[in-house]
């Protein structure tokens, strides 16, 4: 069968994803650098008001990656866009549920620094699981 001879993605797919992968690498490298800088020079446990700016610094490259994901969607073909939106919907729903769960647990006195990281981790895991589920369905 001819389809078995060619496992490359189509040219349209490569063109759509190339800027996204570039931005992802740039964003992750910048994230690592800014996170290290914040930890080393930010005096995050001190009392300078600048520590808040240092603590927020690593968020900037992540916002850049998020914008890149949004810009990827219109470049995808209609089927891939549908899969990606389904995956993002699962991730968003999972993050909302995690936020509600940690919020209600906080009412009952169970809270800590980990609460917001749970939301982040569950949201990202939901996106990944949604992505796989949409493809194998």
């Amino acid at each position, binding site marked *: *069968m*001819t*389809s078995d001879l060619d*496992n490359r993605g*189509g040219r349209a797919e490569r063109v759509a994803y190339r800027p996204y992968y570039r931005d992802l690498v740039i964003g992750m490298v910048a994230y690592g650098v800014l996170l290290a800088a914040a930890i080393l020079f930010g005096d995050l446990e001190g009392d300078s008001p600048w520590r808040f700016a240092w603590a927020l610094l690593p968020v900037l490259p992540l916002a850049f990656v998020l914008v890149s994901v949004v810009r990827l969607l219109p470049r995808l*073909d209609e089927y891939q866009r549908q899969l990606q939106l389904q995956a993002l919907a699962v991730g968003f729903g999972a993050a909302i549920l995690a936020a509600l769960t940690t919020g209600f647990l906080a009412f009952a006195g169970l809270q800590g620094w980990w609460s917001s990281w749970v939301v982040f981790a569950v949201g990202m895991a939901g996106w990944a699981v949604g992505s796989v589920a949409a*493809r194998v369905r």
Partner: protein
Amino acid sequence: MRNVLRALREEQGWTQGRYADLLGVSRQTVNALETGRYDPSLPLAFRLAALHGRPIEELFFPDED
């Protein structure tokens, strides 16, 4: 919907990658179309029809059930 896209592609001797390039979509999309997991939008259906030089109703058929 059922379709005859795989048969028409193989008749032309195109790989899924080549077919995807001709249609401006991903190979994954071609696979989903051929296996009936995804029904194309009207614009993509017209692109398929133009590529094969046939009307849309000769490419896609409603499910019988």
